[in-house]
């Protein structure tokens, strides 16, 4: 199986390229990027062919593509891949509007290709362990979640993350979708209502685009009565011991379960950096996700997280933005 990468705008591509190479029987075809300097740089760094255009990469007949462009450019690239009958794993958030996400899902459905959304938390071993206990009935009835997906503002990683046109927004766009997806997966229930508040106090002096929010608190209500808060703030300074994290407290009739998706760390103090850093030793969630993408293609089954899952998360983000405008809870519109 041959896999190509469309765009290195998202830094996750730097991890995925190794993940792809680690799957037995998979060949990394190369990468294309509309930013030629960026594409050539990463092609050189990772010793893989650089293609001058996305068309040229598609003409090399890949079986599948990873789309790692800026959020707002996911749609044209996914549609291009689908038109070429190529399976797609698209970085999250799937799109910057429900209409775009819906069009991508539809394009892949009509082309008969798989569309997977890059929600690697579905492959987190601590989260899978809790999901198994939940399904076995060990935890009793779920009442609510108190969840955080916080991090440093990713402006130093890639400046486009804090550009409204390219990213679609700030902290709400970046950090609602993972937890919204985990909760939908855990509960098997859809979000009906969203309340959200946002502000831009954190990193205000470092982020020029005033339309980009850096702090956000969100409350979701599910069809089954469960409620959940998500703190999606970019609240960690860029000298924090790690990039950020994802945690949730799952409150049930039997008590509570505290889950930290990135707790499996060493604390390392090195003369080289002179501040504590957390070195992660937990299982590689990106590798497990890429493995499932390849397996889904080979086994002709749906990936464990789909384009529809990505679309549902985008609908929740859209409702959150509408709530920040109206100040009221917003009913999630299903596209």
């Amino acid at each position, binding site marked *: 199986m041959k896999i190509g990468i469309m765009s290195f705008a998202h830094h996750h591509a730097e991890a995925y390229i190794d993940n792809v190479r680690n799957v037995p029987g998979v060949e990394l075809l190369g990468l294309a990027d509309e930013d030629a300097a960026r594409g050539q740089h990463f092609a050189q760094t990772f010793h893989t062919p650089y293609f001058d255009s996305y068309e040229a990469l598609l003409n090399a007949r890949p079986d599948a593509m990873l789309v790692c462009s800026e959020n707002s450019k996911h749609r044209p690239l996914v549609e291009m891949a689908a038109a070429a009958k190529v399976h797609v794993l698209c970085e999250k958030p799937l799109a910057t509007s429900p209409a775009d996400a819906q069009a991508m899902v539809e394009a892949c459905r009509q082309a008969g290709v798989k569309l997977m959304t890059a929600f690697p938390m579905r492959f987190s071993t601590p989260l899978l362990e809790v999901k198994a206990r939940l399904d076995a009935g060990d935890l009793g009835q779920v009442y*609510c979640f108190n969840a955080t997906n916080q991090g440093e503002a990713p402006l130093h990683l890639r400046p486009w993350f804090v550009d409204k046109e390219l990213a679609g927004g700030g902290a709400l766009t970046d950090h609602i979708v993972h937890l919204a997806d985990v909760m939908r997966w855990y509960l098997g229930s859809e979000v009906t209502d969203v309340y959200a*508040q946002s*502000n831009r106090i954190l990193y205000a002096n470092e982020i020029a685009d005033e339309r980009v929010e850096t702090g956000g*608190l969100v409350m979701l209500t599910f069809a089954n*009565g469960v409620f959940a808060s998500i703190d999606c703030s970019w*609240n960690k300074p860029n000298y924090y011991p790690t990039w950020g994290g994802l945690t949730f407290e799952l409150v049930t009739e039997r*008590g509570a379960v505290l889950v930290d998706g990135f707790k499996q760390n060493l604390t390392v103090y090195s003369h080289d950096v002179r501040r504590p850093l957390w070195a992660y030793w937990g299982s590689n969630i990106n590798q497990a996700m890429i493995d499932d993408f390849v397996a889904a293609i080979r086994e002709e089954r749906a990936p464990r997280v789909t384009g529809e899952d990505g679309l549902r998360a985008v609908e929740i983000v859209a409702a959150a933005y509408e709530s920040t405008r109206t100040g009221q*809870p917003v009913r999630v519109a299903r596209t």
Partner: protein
Amino acid sequence: MKVGIAGVGFMGTTHAAGWAATGADLVGLCAETTDEAAGMAQTYRTQVYADYAALLDDVDVIDICTPTHLHYEMVLQAAAAGKHIICEKPLARTVAQAQEMIRACRTAGVKLFVAHVVRFFPEYALAKAQIDQGKIGKPGVVRLTRASYRPKKPSGNWFLDFEKSGGMMLDLMIHDFDYARWISGEVESVFAKNVTSAQPEAVTEYGIAILNHTSGALSHVVGGWAYPPPTFRTAFEIAGDRGLIEWSSDSTAPINLLLRKDSADAPDVGLPGSPVAESPYTMQIKEFYEALINDRTARVSATDGLASVQIALAAIESAQTGKPIALTPLAEVIQ
């Protein structure tokens, strides 16, 4: 200075220990039944009064440590008798009661202090001082968490009687509503959810509130009567535009007892606390005592007590109605 304590439950006992560390003379106690007060009277070598009015006659200061619904009548009676007052939190069961209590004390020329003890806990006081020193810049997103188990008083469990206590959101979350205001200033609107509104048959309680401050800051406040006894977890995370403060009782516990127990007994009501040289409850009583003898203010005022009741009741209303609740500006409320 002669002091009397009304109520000999957890708080009455704790306050008595505080008064013992001051120059005040604890002249008497009263409780629902004189039997209840006998043990404490012996410990502090003081009198048991059968009647609240009789106790008031003999004191300069009354310390009201009774259930929430009794605060209103008892404060009015003390003010009418011209006595200074220390009142346990929450100041009152309703905003209107709190307004009337403050007015009555002002008219009578007596001082009214509200025992929001969290402001005296060293970790909370230090975080406030660090913020005031500009260590983390302007607070942007604040997370405050306080969760324990359901109060299990053997008889007359007023905590579980919503009419008397206002439930967990008024009794427990009020601590952090007060602290949120101390850190980030006045609150404009509140949106909240709780388990007992979503699942009326639930025996545990857990609530999440999102506060929108006039300063632009957001607060995420969590309270719970949800864990198995004797768990009591408290935590805060305060993100500013120039830094971050993190603290949790879990990660800073200086002692972890790994001892076999003969019984899994826990106090009727969970109390937080790390071993420190002076109990925050004693520090609080001392500050009120100093304020009284020197005619000064304390770090928490009766107005603060009213404001936190207003926020808590708005949170309850929001949880019950599903709507965000806009708060009447405090300046208008206290007119």
